[in-house]
């Protein structure tokens, strides 16, 4: 793939010319202003030169790159086949939630009761306190689902997106991932442990202080969130390196960290936007005590369900944008 300056596009690119980052901006189009600004900035910086992109982008360029990435992925928002991995994951998460909600039914008790008791003690087995504990218990279950399944679905989704972008034309999308299941499982486990560890950093601060000092409490929350975002930023390209470049897990980790380091700002934006969009809903889910006292306890279920659906959409966007950006930058460097 080479850059064709006359067309302002990647030659022989399956990515159509209309996706070229430096076309003439038409005043009557509906691009947000930031994209217009970014596109022109990119043009001025000489982004279209054939040189390798080893120089980090400035904030405006980064914003522009992210904007273009988003635009490219959102064009495929209604491509049904791209949603399949995420829908499979959503189905498993919904079944997990249903399983927890049915904890009192005889068929669910052997597994759901110990999980609830582990999270909330004996009180969590009584109505309505079950709903107070539900978000935390479900979060623990989600870690398990994530480690077992989300790794596979994100691998398959990466390949599906790459195919949609014209960069992966041979073979299926599930078999290659399932063949390397131990590696994706290990990747998921390590990532989950690292992010869990980031949020667990809050326990360093004495609980009483956290309860009484609002500024400290929010500082701790946002601080640990920032650490979690950073961890995810550094490791987010691992799946792409594994399945689009055929690297081993350890090499893919190293490559992901290096790649993310070279493209820190855009990657930070790509990772943090979905996380920050989901954060208010996650925070609301954690305020189950409010729902129990002010509304019906079952409202917690509605919030968690909404959170799952939002996560579905944001995961689609994250995997899509990360894959697109990876491919785009790789080709620029080639």
């Amino acid at each position: 793939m080479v850059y064709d300056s006359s067309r302002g596009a990647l030659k022989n690119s399956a990515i159509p010319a209309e996706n070229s980052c430096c076309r003439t901006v038409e005043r009557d189009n509906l691009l947000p202003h930031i994209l217009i600004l970014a596109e022109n900035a990119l043009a001025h910086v000489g982004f279209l030169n054939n040189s390798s992109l080893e120089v980090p982008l400035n904030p405006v360029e980064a914003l522009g790159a992210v904007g273009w990435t988003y635009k490219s992925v959102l064009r495929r928002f209604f491509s049904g086949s791209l949603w399949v991995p995420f829908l499979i994951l959503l189905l498993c998460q919904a079944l997990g939630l249903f399983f927890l909600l049915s904890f009192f039914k005889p068929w669910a008790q052997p597994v759901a009761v110990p999980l609830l008791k582990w999270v909330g003690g004996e009180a969590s087995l009584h109505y309505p306190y079950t709903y107070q504990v539900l978000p935390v218990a479900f979060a623990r279950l989600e870690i398990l689902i994530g480690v077992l399944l989300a790794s596979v679905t994100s691998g398959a989704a990466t390949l599906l997106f790459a195919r949609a972008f014209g960069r992966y034309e041979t073979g299926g999308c599930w078999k290659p991932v399932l063949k390397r299941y131990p590696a994706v499982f290990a990747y998921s486990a390590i990532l989950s442990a690292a992010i869990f560890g980031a949020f667990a950093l809050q326990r360093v601060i004495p609980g009483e202080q956290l309860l009484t000092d609002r500024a400290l409490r929010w500082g701790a929350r946002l601080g640990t969130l920032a650490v979690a975002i950073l961890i995810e930023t550094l490791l987010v390209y691992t799946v792409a390196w594994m399945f689009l470049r055929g690297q081993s897990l350890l090499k893919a980790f190293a490559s992901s960290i290096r790649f993310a380091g070279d493209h820190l700002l855009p990657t930070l934006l790509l990772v943090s936007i979905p996380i920050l969009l989901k954060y208010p809903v996650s925070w609301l889910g954690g305020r189950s005590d409010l729902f129990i006292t002010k509304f019906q306890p079952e409202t917690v279920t509605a919030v968690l369900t909404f959170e799952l659906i939002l996560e579905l959409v944001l995961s689609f966007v994250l995997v899509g944008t990360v894959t697109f950006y990876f491919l785009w930058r790789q080709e620029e460097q080639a």
Partner: protein
Amino acid sequence: MKHVLICFLPILVGCSGSQEFSQRFQAERDLWRADRAFQKLAIAPQLVDESQWAAAAKSYEAIGETYSRIPADADSGFVGRNIRTTRTLASQAYTRAADVWLSLGDTAQAITLYEMMEADYTGLPGVVASAALALGNVKERSRKIDQALAAYRRVFEILRESSNQTIPSKMMQIPLHIARLQEGDSAAEAYAQADSFYGAIVESEPQTLNGASAQSRLVDVATDKQDWFLAGKRLEGLEEQLKVMENPPQDPADVRMAIGQTQYQGLKHLQEGVGTWKSLLRDYPRSKIAPKALMALGNHYATTGETEKALEMFSRVTEEYPNDLETGPLARLAAARLLERADRWSEANQAFKRLPIDYPLSEAALQSHIDIIVHYERVEQEEAKQQAMVDAENALSSFLGRYPTDKNILAARQRLVILYFKQERYAEGVQELLTLSQAMRGSPQGLQFLVLAAQTAETKLGEQEQAAELFEQVSDVYAGTEAARQAAAEAKRIRESL
């Protein structure tokens, strides 16, 4: 993978959960929802009609019926515990249903539920005792004392058999209550049984909530028998118990105060009582009972004519305990009255006038206006008395207008009645009495106000028809009482004279 799943399936089936656990959770959920629906009605009860309350009662009954069908199980394991919890929840639903029926005036329905709970919950003595206690209360309110006693005795039997469980206060009261409902030899026997019961608890668990509660009841037994010496000794024992408890259910200073009162009023050992109150101030200076000890000392010195000492005690209440809004106004009023009796009127008048300024929401402040009028009546200063009555009426009306929901609103109305009667404004007095009787409907005080209104209407206003109607109202509202019978007779007499 297939083989793993096939192996996993029998394990799952074998480890399947408990139906009883499931039922317990569903019972909790259904009861919680019913409570939430009831709370919504209770937010604005005046907007809820009888059919909605009845529907709430029926929904509670339905929950009780659903979860009472589970057969009792004496097993002490996981299954048995869940069954007992479910049946207890069902009984709570029945109890709430009975409470709603009682509030609607349907005692028959409530009695049916209580009797059913006594019969069907024999494996849960706590439930049976609560049902019997509630049944006893209903019977007692309906003046069926024998049936009430029978129910209370069933509670007593269960209490005797229960061991190492904290007994709720209203149940702990039952042996004493049984004794109080009886007379003569039966009462003496009942007091002896109560004494024995409480004594056994104190001996077996002295420094527990049960022990303290039982010791307190032993004091009541001695007081009822007017054995003040024994009451004093038992109070001393109670104070010792409370002092060593980590979270005593009662302030030990409160008990010391009671010891002083027993010595002073019961045994008539005045100096001993005074000494005890002084020791309270020394040993419990920061207790909220300390101002009451100062008041008691002040009242003692006022009785013995030691005016300055009495005034000193009263002023210490407000100086040393400025945040006590209960005793402070009483101390000020007592001081003002003492000064008035000592013919130090200018100081007394100043004290009376400062009361509503310093303690505007207190009953003492309302009383101060009346006390000023009483003084001018005593010294026969008619003009000053008239002015004082005008000032009092303005102050009381202003209080009613400014604080319509204050807890002393009825006290203000009572003072208005006194004022209207002093001014021979009987029509207005009767109106206020009717307002008071409506607000206290069903209570002995409400009865007194209604009877007084009827008597005033007949004797002072000459309104025979109104008087007859009011007496008939007494016999309706307080049906079954001696007062109601007398009121009916009065109404009949008036009607016959019309």
